[in-house]
């Protein structure tokens, strides 16, 4: 394998958790829910996936634990914002703070333990294609899931009737309610889907990216995922592209450090965060575009009258 392939492989590994977490948030936001707790759900997924893998020895059970953990944890957010109509911004922050706290507590016994890395699964025939084969078809399950997720969410949102309902709720929840769509229930499902995806993204971190548990290991990726959703203007395929762009930026700092360019490592580490700010500025520059694409009821509370 050449140096270029090696670099591309690291880009894919770095991009996958961003794509996963952002894709879940995309669905939640399309339904009109702004969940700023992605970071918290992600670390919860990471710690639960790691713990389950350590207990059972199977990283596949770890993946399931990460997904289930993220989804259950997001229910807390759903209960507050959907049932008790608490402020979505504040509740999302609460979810992040609580997630970091609980995961730190749960992960205490696992700190410093070396983990089990999720092994790649080669797809017969396809993995024999030169260059592309090893890159795309000799990957781990979570990578395949991320690509399937993008295609699936695109189909779901724009082709299925339930997806149409999700978009309708995000555009105008009062009208959706008047048409008899159960807004709260659909939003619960969308929030849980977002939680499950963030949990899976966390599992990728503790099973693939750095197969061990480090406290607060999502390190702002949840927040970057939120920026990614805006960057993609709520469209799945654009989100995939954006995810790989962010992945490339965040990995370039590691390669730059390895090359030893004489730039202080802290500056390179700050690169993904700075890049996020720059990207946010670039998107908001086109205000019209953002206004047209933002789900109109995003972040607004909904109380059905009975």
């Amino acid at each position, binding site marked *: 394998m050449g140096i270029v392939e090696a670099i591309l492989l690291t880009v894919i590994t770095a991009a996958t958790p961003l794509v996963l977490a952002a894709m879940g948030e995309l669905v939640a936001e399309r339904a009109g829910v702004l969940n700023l707790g992605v970071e918290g759900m992600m670390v919860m997924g990471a710690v639960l996936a790691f713990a389950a893998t350590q207990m059972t020895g199977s990283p596949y059970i770890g993946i399931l634990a990460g997904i289930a953990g993220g989804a259950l944890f997001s229910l807390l957010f759903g209960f507050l914002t959907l049932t008790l109509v608490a402020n979505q*911004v*504040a509740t999302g922050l609460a979810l992040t*703070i609580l997630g970091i*706290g609980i995961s*730190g507590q749960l992960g205490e016994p696992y700190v410093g333990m070396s983990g089990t890395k999720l092994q790649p699964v080669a797809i017969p025939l396809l993995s024999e294609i030169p260059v592309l084969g090893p890159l795309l078809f000799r990957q781990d399950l979570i990578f395949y899931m991320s690509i399937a997720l993008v295609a699936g969410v695109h189909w779901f949102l724009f082709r299925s009737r339930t997806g149409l309902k999700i978009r309708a709720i995000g555009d105008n929840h009062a009208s959706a309610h008047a048409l008899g769509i159960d807004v709260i229930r659909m939003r619960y499902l969308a929030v849980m889907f977002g939680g499950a995806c963030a949990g899976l993204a966390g599992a990728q971190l503790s099973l693939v990216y750095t197969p061990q548990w480090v406290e607060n290991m999502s390190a702002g990726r949840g927040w970057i995922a939120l920026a990614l959703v805006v960057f993609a203007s709520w469209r799945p395929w654009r989100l995939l592209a954006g995810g790989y762009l962010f992945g490339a930026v965040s990995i370039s700092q590691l390669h730059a450090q390895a090359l030893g360019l004489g730039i202080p490592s802290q500056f390179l580490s*700050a690169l993904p965060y700075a890049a996020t*700010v720059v990207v*946010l500025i670039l998107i908001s520059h086109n205000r019209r575009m953002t206004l047209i694409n933002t789900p109109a009821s995003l972040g607004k509370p909904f109380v059905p009258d009975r």
Partner: protein
Amino acid sequence: MRIELEKRPQASAFYSVLSPFIALFLTVIAGGIMFALLGKDPFSALYGFFVEPLLDIWSIHEIAIKAAPLILIGVGLSICYRSNNWNIGAEGQFTAGAIAGSIIPVVFYEWHSPLVLPLMLIFGMIGGALYAAIPAFLKAHMNTNEILTSLMLVYIAQLFLDWMVRGPWRSPDAYNFPVTRDFAPEAILPELVSSGRTNLGFAFAIIAAIALWFMMRYTLKGFEITVLGQSQRAGRFAGFSSRKMIWFSMLLSGALAGLAGISEVSGAINKLQPIISPGYGFTAIIVAFLGRLNPLGIVAAGLFLALTYVGGEAVQLTLSVSDKVTRVFQGLLLFFVLSCDTLILYRIRLVLAGRPGAAQSGAS
């Protein structure tokens, strides 16, 4: 069974006073359950966490020291949140203030003058305000979401501090430890009373809280903040500018966070090091909400959350539980605060399955 909300005709004054206390009560119960799950006796753990620190003078001073930055940052954030500007990067502004305020004692350490301390404090405020000016500018003029930018800047500030104390500002006599030189005595915030370590920072916090309380309660500026937070459109009709409000609230909260940063470094740590805060900037968000975004409420809330830090350290030693317990407590508290605030605007009904409205209970 499901929960239904019924909007009250008018916000309940009763619950707006009571809801933080219900939240505290629920947090203590949840905390007890958590200790029980960890295999500790919940009663002695809670006693150690919440009561014991109040019994000796040393701990009380520790609480005041930790409450000072929480209150300073919290009251600033309350102005932001009231005006609908979601600055969640106070931790970064705290760090920026600490760095800017340390320029004199670290770089010009040979300059001895009574002016050193006031200048440090002013530099700290300017540093915090300038750092908050970045998301403020981006929101006001580029329409960029301030939540994400202010948060990203936290990471950047922390990495910058890390570089400073390992690189240009590393003390020559610290044997490669990543710290700056110790501050000279005139660069250290004096203690407030003779009985312990509580420093002037606590006085700053109380003064800031009272001043902002006065502003919100009596002045047109406070009214402007309230109106713009409730409805930008109504604010525009009143002739208030939401763009100027972005600047005002962000610079004010940034300056207060910066003051908290330099006060902490000058009063409690006496030098710069890679980590100067146990997450004060984030905990202050909880403080702001627990205090119901009221500056005087925030004083009480700041003292309480400071207690969770001190109590957390105490049980860490006596019961050998990890320091993460504190974080969990804080997170739970914010959740309960947000849930209980629903009671202020709504009546909550528990509807048992079957005919809607058949069985009703709950608060009304």
